[in-house]
């Protein structure tokens, strides 16, 4: 009977043996204070549905690798002009995509962009290629709305 009580008491208080330790509770957190930079998280793969997309992706990848990534985040738009071109060709075809890109490039050159495009949290102008495909279905986003593209 004496052993029964000892076992009972041990079992009853056994939870204390596995309680949270101070080390776990107050341990130093590994925090990364660097700013998340999605800009350089490019999709460099060459997966393409057709030859046109492959050519465009080849030039876009080359531009990103040799110019854009070294030059820095200078395009005021999201998606950036080169990413817009890749998206535009994917959504339409190489000819229409090229026209969409030249139109975007002209709009990028215009210095008076303020108040014309909705902005992202990062401050970039949000201007997706889906608005320009002439499909007739436009999801209009008001200028004063902040989008969450990233």
């Amino acid at each position, binding site marked *: 009977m004496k052993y029964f*009580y000892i076992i009972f008491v041990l079992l*009853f208080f056994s939870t204390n043996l596995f309680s949270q330790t101070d080390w776990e509770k107050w341990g130093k957190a590994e925090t990364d204070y660097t700013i998340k930079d999605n800009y350089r998280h490019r999709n460099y793969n060459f997966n393409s549905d057709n030859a046109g997309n492959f050519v465009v992706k080849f030039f876009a990848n080359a531009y990103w690798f040799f110019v854009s990534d070294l030059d820095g985040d200078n395009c005021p738009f999201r998606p950036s002009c080169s990413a817009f071109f890749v998206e535009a060709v994917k959504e339409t075809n190489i000819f*229409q995509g*090229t*026209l*969409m*890109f*030249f*139109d*975007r*490039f*002209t*709009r990028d*050159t*215009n*210095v*008076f*962009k303020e108040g*014309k495009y909705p902005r992202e949290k990062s401050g970039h102008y949000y201007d997706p290629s889906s*608005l*320009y*495909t*002439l499909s*007739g279905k*436009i999801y*209009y986003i*008001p200028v004063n709305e902040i989008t969450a593209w990233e």
Partner: protein
Amino acid sequence: MKKTIFLFILFSLTIKPQTPNPLYSPENVRKFADYLFSGKDYLRSVFEYEKLLQYGKNDTIEFKIPVAYQLMEQYDLALQEFSKINKESVYYNESEREYYKTLLLSDKYEELQNKLFGNEVKDYQRLLYLSYLFNPVKVPDEQNFLNIFPSSEKRNLQNFFDKKKDPPYKSSLLAGLFSALIPGSGKIYISEIGDGITAFIASSLFAFLSYDNFRANHNFRGWLFSGIGFFFYAGNIYGSVAAAQIYNAKVDYQYKEKLKQYLNDKNYFMERNDFIK
């Protein structure tokens, strides 16, 4: 003896269990739910109201739950809960009215029109006519439309009706044609003046560079600048057509937003439920 004391201490906790917390009494839950509702914390108020329904049926709470969903813009849930309210409820008429209003809010115009067509109740006739202002296809007869609303509001509604009947769209075709004749003019036509001037400068610059290089017998550069210039020119025509479509989408969006704001201020010309604060 020791064993008895030990066991007594060990099990003493179960002898005096915790009593129910008075904070969770139905009266206090109701007060808390009303407090959340009046503070526009509708989601949590629904959670508390649903707790109360476990104690028994209550018409007010059954009505306030879908109203909270409606105010949260959870229209499908609101419709589901409004349709559960039966004829014995004190708020049956209000819930029916709110059900139709929710159909309008959730852009289910055709369903609303099918359900309310031929209904003689004035509130419902107004909702039916208001739904035509949102519907992209049907436009009702102007006089019938205006006569159903109070005369003090006729001027505002006439404005909305006119904009619905003849929206201030810009023609994609004209925008494209203008840009084909003078680069950038299509963009200026749709009020994108900066883009229009930039397109004009870009196209003109490459045209000049091409001409100048051909004149100087630099044929390769001449063709290169011609090619780039062509894409700027064609891209601008394309962009003008696209920009006209975006402009028209903006017109539609602004019309709907203004109309929704106006109708919301007027509570869709329906009586307000004063007990809902």
